[in-house]
């Protein structure tokens, strides 16, 4: 009995008395800017503001906040603004292949239906594969044509007077 009980109690004690270890990590600001706060609250004192790509060394995680070293002091940054990788450049697609995907599906509808049946799809799935829901790429292009420059955005933000 003791041969089972002792190791189990030892494991429980180990789990109870040891706190989780937080490995020191690096975090990078992903948003255009990020405020460093003195506590885990947006109404605490603002210690400073850093820009996109700024690298922090973190010592702990507190809820949705990351504890960071900032000018030799402890501060907190919202985890929503950070990632463990440097920010990526904006990724743009080379368009024109979406219609290939759709046409490909449409062109081979019968073979897809067979493949679908073989894969055990539901009747609803098979109906969809046969009929193809519509897609409007023209209006999608229109949607994508609306661009906002940094200057426009700054003016727009300054225009919020209320």
């Amino acid at each position, binding site marked *: 009995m003791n041969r089972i009980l002792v190791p189990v109690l030892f494991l429980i004690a180990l789990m109870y008395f040891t706190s989780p270890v937080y490995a020191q990590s690096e975090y990078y600001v992903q948003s255009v800017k990020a405020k460093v706060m003195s506590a885990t609250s947006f109404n605490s004192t603002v210690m400073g503001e850093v820009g996109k790509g700024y690298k922090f060394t973190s010592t702990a995680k507190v809820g949705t906040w990351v504890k960071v070293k900032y000018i030799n002091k402890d501060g907190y940054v919202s985890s929503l*603004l950070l990632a463990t990788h440097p920010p*990526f450049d904006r990724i743009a697609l080379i368009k024109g292949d979406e219609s290939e995907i759709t046409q490909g599906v449409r062109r081979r509808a019968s073979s897809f239906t067979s493949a679908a049946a073989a894969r055990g799809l539901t009747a609803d799935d098979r109906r969809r594969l046969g009929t193809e829901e519509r897609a*409007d790429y023209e209006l999608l292009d229109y949607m994508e044509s609306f661009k906002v420059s940094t200057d426009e955005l700054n003016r727009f933000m300054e225009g919020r007077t209320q």
Partner: protein
Amino acid sequence: MALIIAGGSASPQPLFAAESYTNFRQRASVSDEILTSDIAEEIRFGREVAARIIARFGMYDNPEIMKYVNLVGNVLAINAGRPELEFHFAVLNTDEINGYAAPGGYIFLTRGAIANMQDESELAGALAHEIGHVVEKHAVKELNIKGQEKTSVSNLAMLIGGSSDSARVAFSQAVDKALDLLFKDGYKRADEIQADRDAVLFCALSGYAPIGLSRYFARIDKVKGKQTEIIDKTHPSFKDRIAWMGGMIKEEGIDTGDYKTAKDRFTKYITLLK
């Protein structure tokens, strides 16, 4: 195709109304690790979903409104923590009250939704909720396309890049499932709550009144019938969400501060919509 998405932004466990915001905070974590190739595939997949959403409703064709919504959306997007994505915003031409997000940064609000708003902070809140779904990759994770040991996005990459019939069938199925998620099944309750949390914080970080989304929810909670049929079916109750956001706003220390509603500017644009 290489992977990876490591770690989630929040636990996939269901979040119950009784759970406090403090507990939820403990389960949240920092943004995913990703590869650029996966992002490109996420956008490609999102374009397909977006094209079908547009085809279903049509777009509200008013360049001034479109520009305005894109400006508000971009104010939020620069604080959303996914600089690799170019977010696009549009108004769907339907009386239905709802918003939709497709992976890769395609955000939609319906004409009916905007008609029920009273200021720019409410518009920002609704847009930010949809941005939250994209930032947290809820659709991509929910689809959970199986295949070897790869993650969802990598599997999307495989499907899109695949030239075989079965790959194309699987891609088409994935798009259909994404549409089912939006129009029929809805996201997990925890995902909706997480998108609300993100929305409130994105608004605060962008200078908008964080309470805007709650005020809008309280208003549309009173609308019954066909206009709210889908949103009622696919989302947790507004009362629960409003209560939860109220606790969160206090706890995050954003219940006071210099936050804007920009009511006048919104009113100017909303008259174009009606």
